[in-house]
């Protein structure tokens, strides 16, 4: 299985005052995750076939997100509820 890929990881703003707040957003995907469409057809003994029926299929490989700051630097990092790829941060 493939390693996930980070498309972007951005701090906004990237320059803050001491104690200032900023937001980090991570956009990533996993190459193993894909959406497929299967087609089902049934055929009887006489060779009569049904119309094809499409069956969507999602192969997922969920990813988890994490953000860390240098140990002891004093940052506060809080994962935003409902948006696991967004972190509300506060500078030391």
């Amino acid at each position, binding site marked *: 299985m493939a390693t996930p890929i980070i498309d972007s990881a951005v701090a906004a703003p990237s320059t803050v*005052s001491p104690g200032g707040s900023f937001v980090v957003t*991570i956009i990533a995907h996993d190459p193993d995750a894909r959406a497929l469409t299967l087609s089902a057809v049934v055929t009887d003994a006489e060779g009569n076939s049904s119309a094809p029926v499409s069956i969507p299929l999602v192969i997922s490989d969920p990813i988890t997100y*994490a*953000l860390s700051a240098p140990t002891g*630097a004093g940052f506060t990092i809080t994962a935003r509820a409902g948006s696991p790829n967004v972190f509300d941060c506060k500078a030391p």
Partner: protein
Amino acid sequence: MGTTYTLVAAVTDREGHTAQQNINVVVGTLSGISPWFVEDFSTYTTTANLMANPNGWYSTGEDVCGNSAPNGTCPTSDVGTIWLDTGVGLNTGGYSLTQSMRYDQVDGGICSGPSVGRNINFPSSVTEVWVEVWLKWSVGWTAADSRAGGGCDPDYKLLFGRITGAGDRWSLGIEGGGGTADEYFICSYPPTGSSNLNVNFTGSPAGGTLAVAGFTPDSGDGWHRVRGHWKIGTGANDGVDAWWFDNNLCVNRTGINPSATTIYGLALGRNMNSGPKHTPQSYWWGRVATWKTDPGWGA
């Protein structure tokens, strides 16, 4: 201009495969010199918490929450006119804050001098201080007397530098232009007329009040930065009074000799001499910062 920290973003899939990417964040100040004291309202959880003064920075006995409430009677359960506004925060000039202190100025009651305000006591008294505040006004905000022809002094006392050793104060305010005219941001330079600050001017023009015209808080044009420098000096005509509204110079006096002893704090808002009747309006304090060493503003 600050310290660069590297944060690490990481993502992991179900099989434990991990990818990482570094993010650089610069923590500093606009001037590169850290403030001595900062109130950015980010530490408070509720209005009641704000008013309860958990950091001990405010002289709560002087809190004024409206014309009907005498000094020091802002109840934490019903402050009325002072709020922790979690929906309005400063986000400009490299700062990103999520909260502010909002003053609601209710029915103006023309000429009745309605007041809303709090007072910060510095960690210690100083003889020289640089101050930066960020402010935002509601659309239509005005200090002008709404009656035709006016009748009261259309001033709002915005910010004082509070002093010991004399009975006066340094004052910045907003003066109503009247009608549809712009407001004026005024930097009252103590003293005008009789004063106990014993200011000696060198240079010209002489006088106590200078102004930045074309001040348009009523336009709702977002945050404004007010910066200044007060120095009492040593009594040898080496005091300073210099203030800017955004990048517009309001007053710049050097060689002055105030008779004050120390500067001990700031008054964040006082009374509106005139004001519009029956027109609620608001403004917000986004950040208050002070420096004891020159942050490099040029005065």
